[in-house]
C-alpha cells in the first residue's frame, strides 16, 4: 500500500528546481506528481516517479541530498466535503498528517491525494476500516499508463 516518494533539499535560488528537473528529464524520467514546500531560505521538492531508485541515483549524482519517504495515495470523492470527511477518519483515529498534496488525475468522480503520516501503517488500517480506497503501486501506474 505504501508508495515511495523522493524528497530533495533545494536552496531558495534561481535554478535549483530546474536543475533537478532537467537531470530527470535527460534520463527520460516522467514525474507522476510533485509538490514544493518552501521557506524563505530553502525548499523541499517532493516527487513521485515510477523508477524511484533510478531517479534517486540521478539526483544524488548531481550532488543533491535525497531522502526516500513512504506516502499513501488515497482516493477522495470529488464533491464538496469529500476531503473533510476523509480527514475526519484520521482525526477519529488520532493520526497526524505531516503534509499532503494531490495527483492531477481523476477517475469516476474520485480525486487522488498523496498523504504523508508519521505512522503510515496505522493510517492504512484506519482507512481500510473506514472503507476508503488506498491505491497501491500497481494500480497507480495503471492509471498513469506507465
Amino acid at each position, binding site marked *: 500500500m505504501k508508495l515511495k516518494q523522493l*524528497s530533495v*533539499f533545494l*536552496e531558495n535560488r534561481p535554478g535549483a528546481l530546474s536543475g533537478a528537473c532537467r537531470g530527470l528529464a535527460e534520463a527520460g524520467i516522467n514525474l507522476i506528481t510533485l509538490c514544493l514546500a518552501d521557506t524563505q531560505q*530553502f525548499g*523541499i521538492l517532493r516527487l513521485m516517479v515510477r523508477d524511484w531508485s533510478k531517479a534517486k541515483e540521478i539526483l544524488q549524482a548531481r550532488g*543533491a541530498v535525497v*531522502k526516500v*519517504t513512504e506516502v499513501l495515495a488515497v482516493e477522495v470523492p470529488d464533491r464538496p466535503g469529500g476531503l473533510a470527511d476523509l480527514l475526519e477518519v484520521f482525526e477519529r483515529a488520532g493520526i497526524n498528517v505531516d503534509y499532503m498534496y494531490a495527483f492531477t488525475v481523476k477517475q469516476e468522480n474520485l480525486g487522488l491525494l498523496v498523504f504523508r503520516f508519521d505512522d503510515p501503517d496505522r493510517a492504512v488500517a484506519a482507512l481500510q476500516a473506514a472503507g476508503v480506497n488506498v491505491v497501491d503501486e500497481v494500480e497507480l501506474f495503471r492509471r498513469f499508463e506507465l
Partner: protein
Amino acid sequence: MNPNRDLQGTFHPASAPDYLPLPQLRQLQLQRLRFIVERAYERVPLYRGRMDERKVAPSDIRSLGDIVRLPFTTKTDLRDTYPFGLFASPLKEIVRFHASSGTTGKPIVVAYTEEDVRDWTQAMMRSFLACGLHSGDVIQNAYGYGLFTGGLGAHYGAEALGAGVIPISGGNTERQIMILKDFGVTAICCTPSYFIHLIERARELGVDLQALPLRAGVFGAEPWTEEMRQRIEAETNLKAYDIYGLSEIIGPGVAMECLHQSGPHIFEDLFYPEVIDPQTGEPVADGVEGELVLTTLCKRAMPMIRYRTRDISALHEAVCGCGRTLRRIKRISRRTDDMMIIRGINVFPSQIEAALLAVEGTLPHYQILVDRVKGLDELEVQVEVTAEFFGDTVGALEQLRQRLSHAVERVIGLRARVRLVEPHTLQRSEGKAKRVVDKRKL
C-alpha cells in the same frame, strides 16, 4: 649499503638530536643562539639597528633567558625589506629561494644556503621518522611544489629517508586518488582540509580508502582541530599526524608529532620556541596559550630573531612517552590573524567548528560570512545539508537550523544566522581551506 635504512620506525641515528639530555640540549641551544644573534647583528642592518636602539649587544646574550632582551621580528619586517633585505649571506651563497603567495601585497622572500637546505632536509627526515615512516614507504607528496616551501621541503626529507616519493604536488583530486590506489601509497602529505576533500571525492568515485595500505598522513600548513583528526581517522585506516612549519622559519619540519600524537615536538636544536602574550609581548607560563615566537638557531641565509608567527599555541614541557626531550607545542587551531572581531567580540573559526560538530556529530562543510549591514556586524554560517541530517519536512530542517544556530550562539556569545545550503556548493580547497569570507570594509 646503509645499515640504518630499515629500522622500522624504532630509534634511528638521524633522530638522535630528538633525545638529547636536557642540559646538553640547552647548552647547544645557547651556543647556537649566540652564533645566530651575532650573525644577524653583524650582517643584517635591521637587526643591528633594532638591537642598538635597545642597547643590546650580541655579547649580552649569556643565557637562554636573555633572549627576551632581543627585539621581535614580524611579517611586516619581511615585507618592508622585500626582497633580500634580511639576508645574512651574500647571494653567491644562496642555493634556494622560496616565496609566499603574496595574497596581501608583496610576497615575502626566504632564502637558504647549502647548509640551510641540509638542516631543513634533516628536520623533515626526523619528522617522517617521528611518525614511524622509513625507507620502503611510498610517500605521496601533495603539498604544492614551487615557491611554496611545502612541496620541496617534504620531498627532500622523504628522499633522505630513503622512501619513495611521488611528487604529485597539489590539486587534481581524481589523479591523486588513482595514484593513492595504484601505487600502494603508505603515507600522504597534504593539508588536512584537502585530505577531507579527498576522502569525500574517493567515496563518490567508489574508492574504499580503508582497503588501501595508507597508514600515515602528514598534515599541516593550515590550522586544524582535533575534530578534523578524528574524522580523518574514522574514515580511513591512517593515523593523522600534525606537522608544523612556516616559510619564514624554514618551511615544514619546524615541529612534528610522534607516534603518541600528543602535539608536535619542536626540533629545538634548530628552532628556539617561546610563547608570549600577543598583547603585551611578555612570556606566558608553561602550558598557557599565547602567540608562538620562534628563533632560528642555525639558519645562515636568513636568520629569524624572535619571529612572531601569529600562531596561537602553548608549550608543553612534560616528557612525552616517546622519550624525546623536545618540548611539544599545542596543535595550532587558530591564528591571531584568524580572529574576527564581531561586534567587539573575539571569534575564532575553530569555535564555530566545534559548535557545528557538537550538533551533527560529524563535521559538515561550512563557511563563515561576516558582513556589516547598516553599521552592524552580521555573522552568517552556511552549512551544507547532508543526507543524515535531511528530514523530509520543513519543520525538521528548521529545527536543525535552530539547533545549529543556538549551538554557535552558546559558544561564541553572539547570534549567528545559520543558512542551510545544498551539498558541494561551498568552495572546496585544493590547498588551505577558506573558512571565512569577511565582506566588511574595515
